[in-house]
Each structure stands twice: as C-alpha cells, then as structure tokens.
C-alpha cells in the first residue's frame, strides 16, 4: 500500500470515528441529566467539529476551512464561558434546590444584590443543607 492510499484510508476511518463521536456527544446533550453536562457536551461538540473540519481539509485540499475552525473555536469558548456565568447566576439546580454551602459570603452578597436573589424563595430555611448531603440528589 503506498502512502497516498494509506492516507485516504485513514481519512475515511477518521470520518467514521468522528461521526460516531458526534452522535454520542449529541446523545449526552439530549440525555443530560444536568445543565453543566449539556454545556460540556456542547463544548466537546465544538472540538469534534474542529477536528472534522481539519479532516475535511485534508480530504479536499481546501485549507480555507482552517479559518472557519478558528472562528468556531472562538465562538465555542465564548459560549461555554457565557453558559458557566449563566449556571452561576441562576443560582439553583434543575430540581429547584437553591445554591447552598459552597458560595462564599462575598458571592452570596453579590448574588442577593442582583435579581438572582428572586430565584431563592424567602421561605427557605436559613440553615441550608451542606453540599455533601446532596450526594444522593
């Protein structure tokens, strides 16, 4: 087998593997179960798309695709950062449990200064459970 044939074979295999990886990652986006899981899967989806673009660049010889890959990486990074801020400022989990122990006093003060405090019901008892108690949640 000469080198060009080996490369063509590798590119085909890589496209198949990356497609499987895409499908599994999308499955994790759908299944969840939590919002950070979905955000993480979207982050991995961007990484897999960049790899896919690189393989397509080898296959077609059209290297202009790299610019798209760089732009996609930037968008994916900013999206993940924005989602992380959203998870933090939402201040509660899917089941409605408000943010508890791991927030420092400074962070809580900042949170209650913003409208995020409206997410936490005032009827909640002051002594909230520690984080370790949620291990079965």
């Amino acid at each position, binding site marked *: 087998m000469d080198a060009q044939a080996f490369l063509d074979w590798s590119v085909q295999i890589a496209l198949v593997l990356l497609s499987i990886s895409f499908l599994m990652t999308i499955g994790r986006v759908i299944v969840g179960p939590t919002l950070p899981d979905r955000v*993480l899967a979207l982050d991995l989806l961007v990484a897999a798309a960049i790899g896919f673009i*690189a393989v397509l660049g080898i296959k077609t010889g059209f290297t202009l695709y790299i610019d798209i890959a760089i732009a996609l990486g930037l968008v994916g990074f900013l999206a993940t950062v924005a989602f*992380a801020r959203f998870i933090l400022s939402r201040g509660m989990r899917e089941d409605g449990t408000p943010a508890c122990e791991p927030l420092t006093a400074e962070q809580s003060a900042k949170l209650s200064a913003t409208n995020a405090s409206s997410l936490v019901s005032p009827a909640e008892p002051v002594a909230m459970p520690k984080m370790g108690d949620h291990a079965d949640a």
Partner: protein
Amino acid sequence: MLEQVALIVAALLVLIGAFFGLFAAIGLWRLPDIYTRMHSASKAGTLGSGLLLIALAVHAGDTSTVLRAAAGVIFFLLTAPISAHLLAKAAYAVGYPLTGESVRDEMKK
C-alpha cells in the same frame, strides 16, 4: 521520498486524533458525574482536535496553512482549560453533587 513520509505521518496523526475524539465521546458516557466527565471532554477532546489540525498542517506543508493551524492549536490549548475550569467552578458553586464514588472533596468547607 520526503512527500511519502509526510503523507504517512499525516495519516497516523489523523488516525490517532480521530481515536482521541472518539475516546472523549466514550468518556462522556462512561464517567459518572460532571466533574469526571470534564476530564474526558477537555483533555481528550482538545488533544484529538489538536492532532487533527497538526495533521492538516503536515499534509498541506505551505507556510500560511501551517501558521494558521498552529494558531488554531495554540488558541485551543489556551482556551479549553479556562472554559473547563469555569464550568466546573460554576457547577460546584451551585452545588451539583459529586458522584458517590468520590473519596475526597478538597473544596468542602
């Protein structure tokens, strides 16, 4: 001769990179909670796409493509740990639980 070597190196990088991409997706299903899944997504995923970009640079061989692929790899290596760290910090601050198999939580107050 040199072209043949470049083709074989590119083919091997493509294969290894694609396998790392697949392993990252498998890790997303095999690992139990968000904090362990982050290992698979941010390390194996970054390594996979980085290797594929390097394979493209080796295959193309002209300066502009190599420089752009290197810029992409460096950018990705810089941003992936930051986004993973931010996401883990946000998830921990909101109180998403560690898996029951965890033996140690060093951030616990």
